[in-house]
């Protein structure tokens, strides 16, 4: 049932993009407001994350009771568990870019539909950063 699987993926993506729009997370100034703990702190993002983790947590608990997903052969669970330097360095670099712009990957990709040049510039640079990692990963001292 590949068509059903694709439809399920499109529906999931739609809910994600709609949720970002409803929650105010497409607005980089609001996201930066949450990160601005020494200024006029905006708690919105904490409420978004609380709602998201609640629903995602219920789904995860249910998934753990299933032998396989409804439409696919197996669950694609993350396998890595080590807390290593690449994890922390990567998260720190991501946080710097997030703080500078107010964009993380989800809202940036969702906001592409607005067609604004700054969003296109951010996403193009993000793709370049991902490609750079793909090229450099073998040369990096840490993986």
């Amino acid at each position, binding site marked *: 049932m*590949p068509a059903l699987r*694709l439809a399920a*993926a*499109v529906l999931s*993506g*739609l*809910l*994600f993009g*709609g*949720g970002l*729009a409803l*929650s105010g997370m497409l607005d*980089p*100034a609001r996201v*930066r407001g949450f*990160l*601005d*703990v*020494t200024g006029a702190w905006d708690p919105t*993002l904490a*409420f978004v994350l*609380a*709602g998201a*983790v*609640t629903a*995602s*947590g*219920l*789904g*995860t608990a249910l998934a753990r009771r299933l032998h396989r*997903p409804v439409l696919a052969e197996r669950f*694609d669970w*993350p396998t890595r*568990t080590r*807390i290593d330097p690449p994890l*922390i*360095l*990567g*998260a*720190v670099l*991501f*946080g710097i*870019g*997030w*703080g*500078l*712009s107010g964009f*993380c*990957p*989800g809202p940036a990709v969702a906001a*592409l*539909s607005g067609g604004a040049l700054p*969003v296109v*510039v*951010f996403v193009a*640079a*993000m793709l370049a*950063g*991902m490609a*750079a990692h793909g090229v450099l990963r073998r040369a990096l001292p840490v993986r």
Partner: protein
Amino acid sequence: MTTLPSAFAGGLLIGLSAALFLLLDGRIAGISGLVAGLARPAGPAWRIGAAFLAGLVLGPPVFALLAGGWPAMRIEASLPVLALAGLLVGFGTRLGSGCTSGHGVCGLARLSPRSAVAVVAFLASGMLTVAAGRVLP
């Protein structure tokens, strides 16, 4: 326009999206991973990821139709700063194996210690970055 209840409701939708993607397709709704996956050879997994991302891009216009208007978007950073930020976000999310969705929405829901550490690290560095921007010229 955005209130805290609508923020929580929007968060529930995002979490529902991640739950459905996991329960139906067996996949983790981590946006940076799905975007990076577009560079891999086409196959069933590629099509599923691309379908999710297509839905993600269509989400805000569908919301705008239902809500009667596009949500607020205030971009404060200049184009050069956005380019630098994009490079850091792209490189950092690959090196760190995830972003706000993969480590935050999905990883925290799985009670993954690895994701919890990543979330603390990117929140702390994001907050320090914004704070530094207030102090520096």
